C-alpha cells in the first residue's frame, strides 16, 4: 500500500505502512532530515511540522493520515510571510544554542503567528509550552516571536 501527499511543494508517493510515523517516512524514506527526532512520543515538540497549515507532531502522525495533505517542514518555512518573519527574528535575536529543537520551535511559532498575529506573552507561553528546549532558550524564543509579530505588523502597515 502506498500513500501520496505533498511535502514542501513536491508530490511524493511512499510505501511505508500507513501506521508508520510521518517523521520516520520523511527522514528515512525521503531523506528529509530537517524535521528532528526528539522523543518519539509527542512530548517534546522537536518534530513539529505543518499538515494543511496546522502544527502537528510528526513522530505520532501516522503517514496514512497525510494522504492527500500538504506537509510543510522547516525546509520551506520561509516561503510563508510568517515563516520568513520567524526565521529573521530567530537570527536577529540569536535564539539558537544547540539548535536541535529549533525547527520545531520555529514551526510552532509560525503556526501561532498565522492565527494570532499579535500574541501576548500568555498566548506565546500557551502555544509554545509543548516545545521543549533543553538549552533553556525560552526567553529568547518569546522575544523573537514578539519581534516577528512586529515585523509582520510593519509589513501589513507598509
Amino acid at each position, binding site marked *: 500500500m502506498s500513500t501520496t501527499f505533498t511535502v514542501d511543494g513536491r508530490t511524493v508517493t511512499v510505501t511505508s505502512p500507513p501506521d508508520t*510515523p510521518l517523521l520516520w517516512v520523511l527522514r528515512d524514506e525521503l531523506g528529509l532530515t530537517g524535521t528532528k527526532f526528539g522523543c518519539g*512520543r509527542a512530548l517534546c*515538540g522537536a518534530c513539529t511540522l505543518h499538515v494543511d497549515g496546522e*502544527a*502537528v507532531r510528526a513522530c*505520532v502522525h*501516522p503517514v496514512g*493520515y497525510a494522504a492527500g495533505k500538504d506537509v510543510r517542514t522547516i525546509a520551506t518555512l520561509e516561503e510563508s510571510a510568517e515563516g520568513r518573519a520567524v526565521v529573521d527574528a530567530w537570527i536577529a535575536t540569536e535564539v539558537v544554542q544547540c539548535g536541535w529543537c529549533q525547527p520545531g520551535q520555529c514551526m510552532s511559532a509560525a*503556526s501561532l503567528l498565522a492565527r494570532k498575529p499579535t500574541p501576548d506573552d500568555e498566548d506565546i507561553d500557551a502555544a509554545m509550552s509543548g516545545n521543549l528546549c533543553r538549552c533553556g532558550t525560552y526567553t529568547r524564543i518569546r522575544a523573537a516571536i514578539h519581534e516577528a509579530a512586529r515585523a509582520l505588523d510593519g509589513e501589513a502597515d507598509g
Partner: protein
Amino acid sequence: MRTIRRAVPLRPLAVALVAAGVGLLAACTPGTHDEPAAARASSASVVQTPAEGFAVVARVLRHPRCLNCHPAGDRPRVGDDARLHAMEVQRGPANHGVDALRCDACHRDANQPLAELPGAPHWSLAPRSMGWEGLDDHALAAALRDPATNGGRSLDDVLRHVTEDPLVLWGWDPGPGRSPVPVPHDAFVDALRTWIEGGAPSPEPGIVTTF
C-alpha cells in the same frame, strides 16, 4: 459538603461479579481473547430502580476515562491517576486546545498503539459548562438533566449520546496504558435508561458514588 464514598450496592455487585465470571470464561474460549473486556461481559441489566441506575451512572462518569476530559477548569487530565496533561495543555476557546497546540497536534480519530496515544473522532474537552469535577451525585444528576449543562440535550439525547458517540465509546476501548471503564457499556446505558425512565431523580446532596 458531606462526602460519602459509597460502595456498589450489594445485589448489583453480585450480579456484576457473575457477569465478570461469565466474561472470564468467555475470555478462555478460543477466538474470543482479543475482544474488549466490555464486549465479553454480560449485557444483563444490573439495576432495577432509578437510584440504582444513577449510582452506576455516577461511578462511570467519575471514571478517569470520562472525568479526565470533563474538568471543572481549563486543563485536561490524563491517565488512570488523573494527572494534569503534560505540556501545559489548555482548553482553548473552542475546547480544542490553543493556537499552535491544538488537540489534533497529536490526537487523531483512533488510538495509536505505537505511541500509546489515545484518539477518537472529535477528540476534545467537554465544554466548561459540562465540567463534572467536584460535583456530588445530587449536582451531577442536575447537570445531566439541565440542557444548560449537558450540551443542550434532552434526556433522550443524553441517552443517545452515551449510546452512540464514538468519543464516549472510546472509554471502553482506550488502547494500551489506560484502564477501560469497568462497567460494560450496555450495562451503563441500561442504568442510565432506568434512571431516565424513572423520572431522573436526584440523589441526596453530599453523596459521591465512586468505584
